[in-house]
């Protein structure tokens, strides 16, 4: 049995009985110091007020005067099965920041609802925030059942009401338990008061929660906390947020892209234990085999599993600032040990936690939740919250204060373009990026799968930290080639422009993926001639029959009916490449399989190994 306590938070609307429930739980499990209840009863007598279980929690003078719990306390008890650390979060709206402080460290939650009042504003807000903070284990306690005469009908109504709301945010409560916290019914022992209830007591519901799992199985993420030079050693210190590391591992530091091997994992002087590996949750320090520049905020990881890198992120934020968050606000974003200066580039929607509706908003008020785009001056290294929560969450700081928090949904775009600076060589760009630049030219019939493959490849490479961008046939025709049609001449000009642009990006260090039918061999050869060493022709060789059978845009049908003139494969020729660098046979393969095949090719030709072969 573990000694590690399960951390739970108790939340809900003001006066629905959180503190009473916690006071009761402590009493029922024998966790209160001897004389505490007697002492509080004595104090109550002196003041001529009735004793409340909540007073156990309300240790502060201020609270007793005001009758509101104003902050998160942490108290412990043992269910008989395991220890529990209980965080009594307050329900008053003013103190939402305290509720978040408590709930963010919990592994599971108890959401309390007054049987008489039913689901209220704070019930919904707390439920929503729990979900936003990443808590998915929620047990609902319907309190004050004695005040509704233990009515099964009333319980069923509240049960349905809360389940409906939670379902709207994707949460299924583990249990819904009817109780009287004041009377102690269904806290530890079952009660005669409601023979109709067959479910667990509150303590049994707590025993049903699963403990948080350490992030050993996720990719290695080691945010650098500090670099120490107290003695001859230069120690990179920090906590392993996920995964493992060991002596000899080659680490890459993002966003800088510099890399070196772990020479030693350091212990403190006086300890003669040699440590060779460490895992998630440990605060460690190590030395490197090369004196590369490393500073606080960089994230060390293995080359093959890099965090995402972007200047703009989409995020869901909860705002705690006194003044509303508005478009253009400049804030400090703290993600793990890194700090970035960000600007609010867009407020995409403000979420109404009452009805889960959303509306366009120019500003986000205090205690509200919104989806925003944050733009940073420098590239940010992160994971999405869903991939690795510890690297996918952040706080926002304004002035001296933490004014909000948020979780990362993803990068807004994959643009991460270096300024063309002729002092910077192709080699140094490749070293900085960890890969070579180049043009991956996908050619094939309409419907062959070029765009799908290109977009998926781009996503996969971007996740690995690559500088990568897709130039797509349909997309350039909205801008760069807006003035062109589909005649032979116009197609040639279209390909020429795209070819020039692609090579410019490639020179700037990016891997450019293009997705154009580009039916004419001569056009493709001209693009190759711009810089043959950077050009890789990939034939997506799906045959005409398969393309026409798929016909994702309904174009073949129109072409067959004569509605589209000069349609490649039907009324215009497709000249397959004579000697492409790679042929992708997509028949019978999923997109994933095809992209995996292409990824291997890209790694070999443009990846770390290819960079190493460049002259220094």
């Amino acid at each position, binding site marked *: 049995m573990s000694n590690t306590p399960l951390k739970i938070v108790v939340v809900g609307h003001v006066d629905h009985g959180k503190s009473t429930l916690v006071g009761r739980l402590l009493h029922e499990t024998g966790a209160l110091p001897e004389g505490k209840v007697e002492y509080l009863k004595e104090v109550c007598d002196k003041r001529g007020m009735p004793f409340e279980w909540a007073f156990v929690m309300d240790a502060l003078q201020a609270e007793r005067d005001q009758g509101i719990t104003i902050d998160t*306390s*942490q108290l412990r008890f043992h269910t008989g099965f395991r220890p529990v650390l209980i965080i009594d979060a307050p329900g008053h709206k003013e103190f939402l920041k305290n509720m*978040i402080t408590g709930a963010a460290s919990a592994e599971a939650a108890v959401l309390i609802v007054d049987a008489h009042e039913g689901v209220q504003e704070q019930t919904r807000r707390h439920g929503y925030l729990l979900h936003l903070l990443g808590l998915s284990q929620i047990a609902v306690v319907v309190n004050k059942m004695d005040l509704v005469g233990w009515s099964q009908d009333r319980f069923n109504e509240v049960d349905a009401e809360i389940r409906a709301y939670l379902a709207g945010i994707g949460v299924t409560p583990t249990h819904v338990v009817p109780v009287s916290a004041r009377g102690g019914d269904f806290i530890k022992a079952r009660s005669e008061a409601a023979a109709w209830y067959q479910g667990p007591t509150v303590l049994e519901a707590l025993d049903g929660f699963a403990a948080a799992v350490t992030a050993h199985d996720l990719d290695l993420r080691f945010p650098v906390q500090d670099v*120490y030079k107290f*003695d001859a050693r230069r120690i990179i210190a*920090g906590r392993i947020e996920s995964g493992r590391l060991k002596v000899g591992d080659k680490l890459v530091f993002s966003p800088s892209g510099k890399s070196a091997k772990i020479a030693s994992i*350091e212990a403190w002087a006086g300890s003669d234990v040699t440590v060779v590996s460490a895992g998630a949750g440990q605060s460690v320090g190590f030395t490197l085999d090369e004196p590369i520049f490393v500073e606080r905020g960089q994230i060390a990881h293995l080359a093959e599993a890099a965090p995402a890198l972007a200047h703009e992120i989409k995020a869901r934020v909860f705002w705690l600032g006194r003044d509303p968050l508005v478009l253009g606000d400049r804030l400090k974003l703290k993600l793990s040990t890194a700090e970035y200066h960000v600007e609010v580039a867009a407020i995409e929607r403000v979420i109404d936690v009452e009805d889960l509706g959303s509306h366009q908003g120019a500003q986000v008020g205090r205690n509200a939740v919104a989806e925003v785009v944050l733009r940073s001056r420098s590239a940010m290294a992160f994971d999405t919250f869903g991939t690795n929560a510890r690297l996918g969450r952040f706080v926002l700081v304004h002035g001296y204060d933490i004014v909000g928090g948020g979780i990362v949904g993803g990068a807004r775009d994959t643009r991460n373009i270096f300024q063309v600076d002729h002092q910077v060589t192709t080699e140094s760009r490749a070293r900085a990026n960890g890969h070579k630049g180049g043009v991956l030219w996908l050619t094939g019939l309409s419907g062959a799968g070029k765009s799908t493959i290109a977009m998926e490849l781009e996503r996969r490479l971007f996740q690995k930290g690559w500088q990568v961008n897709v130039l797509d046939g349909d997309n350039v025709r909205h801008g760069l080639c807006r003035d062109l049609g589909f005649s032979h001449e116009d197609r040639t000009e279209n390909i020429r422009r795209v070819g020039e642009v692609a090579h410019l990006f490639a020179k700037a260090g990016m891997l450019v993926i293009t997705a154009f039918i580009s039916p004419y061999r001569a056009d493709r050869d001209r693009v190759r001639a711009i810089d043959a060493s950077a050009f890789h022709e990939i034939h997506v060789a799906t045959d005409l029959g398969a393309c026409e059978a798929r016909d994702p845009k309904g174009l073949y049908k129109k072409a067959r009916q004569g509605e589209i003139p000069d349609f490649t494969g039907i009324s215009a020729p497709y000249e397959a490449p004579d000697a492409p660098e790679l042929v992708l046979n997509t028949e019978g393969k999923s997109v994933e399989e095809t992209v995996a095949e292409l990824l291997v090719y890209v790694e070999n030709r443009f990846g770390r190994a290819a960079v190493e072969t460049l002259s220094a």
Partner: protein
Amino acid sequence: MTEMNDLDQLEAQSIYIFREAFNRLDKIAMLWSIGKDSNVMLWLARKAFFGHVPFPVLHVDTSYKIPEMIEFRDRVAKEWNLPLIVGQNKAALDAGMHPSQGRVNCCSALKTEGLKALLAEHGFTGVIAGIRRDEEGTRAKERVFSPRNDTNEWDVRDQPPEFWDQFKTDFAPGTHLRIHPLLAWTELDVWRYIAREGIPVVDLYFAKNGQRYRSLGCAPCTGSIASTASTVEEIVEELETTKTSERAGRAQDKESEDAFERLRAAGYM
């Protein structure tokens, strides 16, 4: 590698907090009360900084400490090569301050004011203190990084949010932060850790003639408890079953119902 147990997790978290404080704040110091908790803190600091304690260690000497404590302080400071600074409110002592003038008054003058003077003299922007949430109701309300205004006061009603290990490390000039690396530990955790790591503590904690100290302070205001626990292991065993509170022997907490809260709001540890 086996899973981390609860002590491993507490240790890793405390080390993380020490390193945050050292990195984010200009000038920090650590309070050393000579008690078991601050000895554990010293131990953790040496782990965090690979054998070094890279900031001053402050002891506010009220002159009424139990003599064994001062002997222990000087011996350990020498052994671990600690950058020790001892402060004392000489003016108040010269004016005759003593618990007989009121325990809370005495604590305020000798400890709280003594500390304020020491902080002002050296210009520290962060002070690491070994308080724990389970000690007392008001300490349960604390943050890991807890701001103090320019008169060292604590505003319990308006504390900063603190989540995902993102601590408040920005603050206005003239104010400072209290940093609490042991906030999440319990008294039992502390003793189990002392047993596991072999951390030295003052002998006063061990029972002699059926009495031992559970919490150490000044001689006139600190009482011993009935106990037969004469080793660290026996103390762990004793604490696993006790229901009496740790500060039960500390007289200054009991002057009035909210004495301790008032002490803390005014800048007490």
